[in-house]
């Protein structure tokens, strides 16, 4: 490729950032991939190429269980978050006429508070002697604390759905804002009722935002280990907890790397599928 003056200037300008990303991101990621084909020999690393780690990651029941559970929890969290977020985004985009920015600002503020503290607060809310139980008992609704609130997969779903709500609302809002309002009038003039109009015009046009929201929530939630640790109990532990243990206490970084790569491949595949399906759904009207 011929490099003109403009191209050179652009490349020079972006090069510090690019080099940083190459050294601190691309190289370490490549290293993790390499690592996953090596084995841990107590203190040192055996660098002969092997698929043993992947074999272990995909066949051991514990890893299978954790992987399946992570995937299920992440998918449920994503569906719940996006479904809950859509009406809010719709409300801000279509019904709020003034103070739209204020609404958006209010939506994003909780995201900027410490994630760790937010997760921890849910533990405080849902706990046996927690805020919710003590409030319900104080008001006389229940006689003894509810135990199904904390330390299970539901608590993980609730906490994650809460934590990722802003990330779901914003992309959907942006997509809704881009919809040409005259299209909606046209649909109405052509005899579509509100529901049909929503289903045939608004929803397909909002689809890119919904897809973006789905992926933004799905991918990171698979890698979360704080929420399962704090509110998940033993039944709520996810694959990221195992990755953390392998890299840390268990001192088996190669297996941790193989687990990390495996989960990324699984999530990546799922993401591509969602993207393709969503694009087809959104493209039907065009």
């Amino acid at each position, binding site marked *: 490729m011929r490099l003109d003056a403009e191209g050179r200037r652009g490349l020079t300008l972006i090069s510090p950032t690019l080099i940083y990303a190459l050294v601190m991101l691309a190289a370490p990621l490549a290293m993790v991939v390499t690592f996953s084909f090596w084995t841990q020999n107590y203190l040192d690393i055996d660098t002969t190429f092997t698929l043993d780690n992947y074999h272990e990651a995909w066949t051991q029941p514990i890893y299978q269980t954790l992987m399946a559970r992570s995937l299920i929890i992440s998918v449920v969290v994503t569906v719940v978050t996006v479904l809950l977020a859509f009406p809010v985004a719709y409300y801000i985009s279509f019904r709020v006429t003034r103070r739209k920015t204020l609404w958006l600002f209010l939506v994003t503020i909780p995201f900027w508070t410490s994630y760790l503290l937010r997760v921890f607060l849910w533990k405080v809310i849902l706990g046996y002697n927690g*805020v919710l139980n003590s409030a319900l008992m104080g008001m006389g609704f229940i006689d003894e604390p509810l135990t199904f609130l904390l330390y299970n997969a539901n608590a993980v779903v609730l906490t994650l759905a809460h934590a990722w709500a802003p990330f779901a609302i914003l992309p959907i809002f942006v997509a809704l804002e881009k919809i040409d309002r005259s299209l909606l009038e046209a649909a109405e003039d052509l005899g579509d009722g509100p529901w049909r109009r929503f289903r045939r015009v608004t929803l397909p046009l909002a689809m890119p935002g919904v897809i973006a929201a789905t992926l933004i929530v799905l991918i990171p939630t698979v890698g979360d280990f704080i929420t399962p640790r704090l509110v998940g109990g033993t039944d709520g532990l996810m694959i990221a907890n195992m990755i953390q243990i392998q890299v840390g206490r268990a001192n088996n970084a190669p297996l941790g790397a193989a687990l990390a790569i495996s989960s990324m491949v699984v999530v990546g595949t799922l993401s591509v599928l969602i993207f393709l399906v969503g694009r087809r759904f959104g493209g039907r009207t065009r």
Partner: protein
Amino acid sequence: MSRISRILPNWLGIYAVAFMLFLYAPVVLLPLFAFNSSTIIAFPLTGYTTEWFTVLWETEALHSAVRNSLFVGITTAVLSTLLGACAARAMARYRFPVKRGIVGLVMLPLVLPEIIVGVALLVVLVQLGVPLSLWTVIGGHVLICIPFAIAILNSAFASLDQSLEEASFDLGESRWGTFRRIILPLVMPGVISSLLITFTISLDEFIIAFFLTGTDVTLPVYIWSQLRFPAKLPSIMALGTIMLALSVLLLITAEWFRRRAARRQGLDVQAPGGFVG
């Protein structure tokens, strides 16, 4: 309008408000229990106290964690804004080869789970024999903050009128002079907004800090270590309240600067900017 759509707005509005309550429920509890005199985090509230804030004042380990976090946060903010500015300016102003690939790589940490970033960096650092310190945390934080800095600065650079630059050249200014006297003042509010946002991210970031921290811990890592002790909970609530207030203050300031930048460039102030757009 049909009958349904006349009823619908009310329900939607009620739902939206209810959702906001859900969103703010945990956050509201922080100050509530930070000033509550009971050592147990439960209703009913027992009485007003500032004891937990006093406890914070007297905890030496916390003070060093705060100092570490401030050091990490400020360094991260400066470095990531600098690197973000280079990238944002290049993206907004120039066309260059493999632009999409480069931008994709630089923005990748936005969608990558933080545990992957943390594990990848840890594996490399251990392999190279680099001791874990605050600088390794900074290295990771800069990486995840760059995309946010780019998102904020990109809108500042993209809305820059190129003819101002050309006018400056025609009037005999050098490239550096033009940057310093024309471009920098125009994007300065964006730069400040980016500094504040990246600082806030770094201050609250836990996962990467957890993997890359050495013996000097940052504030979230310190909090993590304290969560195990029930007796420490009220003072953690007090600490959380302070952090919450600080974060909100920084965000409002950042938003104020962003709007000023938009107004200065004659844009619609109401238009959502930064990562919203």
